[in-house]
């Protein structure tokens, strides 16, 4: 055994700090570290950077919901921007017609989009297949038309205004809003992290891996899928409401189909099924369309027509190429590297990481029509009896 390996084992035996076993405590520890870090971050940032940090936070919320739906539960939404719109308009209408505090307003935005999610999710679960994908796409494409139809209610082209919530006088409003958005993101991630380690999380995964096996194990498959979708839509609604606060108002142009596309690409880039990967995706969504793509366009001196579409083209490529080449995304790649490094240090370890769309690869996708029973055939060996 090499010296390095001995040292690595020693380290493993006596860690300088052991994370709490209890998931809630562990997640709270992560969150506490994050809060300290982010506090100092926002202290250092300008107002515009606060705005960007806040954006990253609410996109992380939406991505966390999408990741739960797709990576953990195996369903897909092509129109999560539609649910963001539901949340955003709900908040704006509440601001318009009530004088409530921002917290109940956000709560109602979450509830409304979860409810809309149920309306879409319940019929979609009646069949397997791409129904949810198509229906969510319809939501994202159809909602702007709906706000046009009832434009006196939804504020027409100008939309509805959502003033920034005012905090203590000593804190500037941009910073206060960024804090609210970051707090929401951390709370959502902690809650989802716990949810995934609960009975629900296990049922989500079981349904994803094999619906029939899950139902034989006593899991109500349709209900589980609807719950996952409602949680996911609720997250998107919260994100939409937070977006409305950042934007200072909502109109139908605020939630184009491209938001749904950004979210999907952000999820694929971040690594489907990884809650930590949502930060990578959120950073991409915030910076690619506004800074990186324009920088790229001006570097290559392309005309305005190309530069206006560059972000969309890149996101499309991310989706197609990402799915074909690296379905694990950035977080998957990091885990792959970590596994390689870990194997180097461990005495007997061979890296056993497969990159797959879904977090825990199963051997379910056996091609050419082989059924799972044949894969496991020798496992169900029946010994001959003498009778």
């Amino acid at each position, binding site marked *: 055994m090499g010296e390095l390996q001995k040292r690595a084992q020693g380290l493993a035996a006596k860690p300088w700090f052991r994370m709490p076993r209890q998931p809630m405590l562990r997640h709270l520890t992560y969150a506490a570290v994050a809060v300290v870090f982010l506090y100092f971050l926002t202290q250092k940032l300008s107002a515009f950077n606060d705005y960007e940090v806040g954006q990253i936070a609410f996109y992380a919320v939406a991505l966390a919901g999408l990741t739960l739906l*797709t990576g953990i539960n*195996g369903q*897909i939404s*092509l129109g999560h921007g539609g649910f963001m719109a539901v949340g955003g308009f709900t908040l704006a209408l509440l601001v318009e017609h009530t004088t409530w505090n921002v917290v109940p307003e956000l709560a109602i935005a979450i509830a409304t989009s979860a409810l809309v999610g149920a*309306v*879409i999710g319940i*019929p*979609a679960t*009646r*069949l*397997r*297949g*791409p*129904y949810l*994908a*198509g*229906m969510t*796409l*319809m*939501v994202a*494409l*159809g*909602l702007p*038309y*709906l706000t*046009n*139809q009832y434009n006196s209610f939804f504020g027409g082209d100008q939309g509805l205004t959502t003033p920034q919530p005012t905090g203590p006088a000593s804190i500037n409003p941009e910073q206060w809003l960024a804090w609210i958005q970051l707090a929401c993101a951390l709370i959502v991630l902690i809650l989802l992290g716990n949810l995934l380690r609960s009975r629900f999380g296990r049922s989500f995964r079981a349904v994803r891996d094999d619906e*029939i096996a899950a139902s034989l194990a006593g899991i109500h498959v349709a209900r589980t899928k609807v719950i996952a979708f409602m949680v996911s839509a609720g997250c998107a609604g919260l994100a939409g409401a937070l977006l409305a606060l950042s934007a200072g108002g909502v109109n139908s142009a605020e939630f184009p*189909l*491209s938001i749904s*596309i950004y979210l*999907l*690409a952000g999820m*694929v880039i971040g690594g489907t099924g990884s809650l930590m990967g949502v930060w990578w995706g959120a950073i991409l969504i915030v910076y690619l369309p506004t800074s990186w793509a324009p920088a790229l366009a001006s570097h290559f001196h392309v005309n305005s*027509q*190309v530069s*206006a*579409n*560059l*972000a*969309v*083209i890149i*996101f*499309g*490529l*991310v*989706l*197609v190429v*990402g*799915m*074909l080449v690296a*379905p694990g995304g950035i977080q998957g790649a990091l885990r792959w590297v970590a596994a390689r490094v870990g194997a180097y240090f461990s005495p007997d370890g061979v890296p056993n990481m497969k990159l*797959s*769309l*879904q977090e825990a690869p199963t051997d379910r*996708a*056996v*091609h*050419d*029509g082989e059924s799972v029973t044949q894969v496991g055939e020798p496992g169900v060996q029946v010994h001959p009896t003498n009778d």
Partner: protein
Amino acid sequence: MQFFLNITLGGIATGMIVAAVALGLVLIFRATNIVNFAQGAMAMMTTYIAYAVLHQGSGYWLAFVAALATGLLFGALTQVVLIRPLQGKSPLNAIIVTFGFLIFLEGVAGAIWGSQTRTYPAPFSEAGQKIGNTQIAFSPFDVFVVLAVLALMILMLVLFRGTDLGLRMRAVAFAPETARLLGVRVRPLLTLGWALSAAAGVLAALLVVPTSSLTPNFMDVILIYGFTAAVVGGLDSPVGALVGGLATGLSLAYVGGYLGGSLEPMAALALVIVSLMIRPEGLFARPAPRRV
């Protein structure tokens, strides 16, 4: 009464176009369990190519044929490059890839041709006709729409019911492994299926573009109506695509005519929800149960 009649006639014309889109979706879904969300965008790209051909000075019909041929090729190429590598992977991957391709194509179209609207001509007059003393909103172009889609449907019917190639394609769609065991080469047939599906989408685009207008996203809404029609009729039934298309076209026409045109996309969603609640397998589902 005349208003109702005109809406109905308009609904039939739209319904036929929607049926062509639905047929394209069904052709692929039946064989591979994939809904090709990029179908509309592929047809959009092809329509821009037809537009370019048209503005080279060629006539409408040359552009028409060129578009259909390009569509066939485009569909086949897409299957080979993007879809074949996904075989045996989770169906979610295919959904994300086709959706990503939709976005990519719309971005590329915007980059090349810009987002301004262009008008695409119709081969026949789009003006309503006078029959006796009543003006009805059914133009010669609408007649062409109905006949073109009917011709497509009949061609498909002859192909699938009357030829050996069609028999093989159906075998691949229903039972790919069994088909292989009977000596059928599956891969080229899947490619052919994608080619035909793309051509159906292109036909729909060529029929819809004179009345809408040519922009990078003009097929988005038509695609979701096609999806609606396919769900109503049963995602794996070509006959269902026709009936579902007409049902969808008429329903949307009534909603648009009596309640307001902006409600049509949401009405389509409501139609999907209702049809999934009442008859989830679609009106013309195939008889066999889902294989476990």
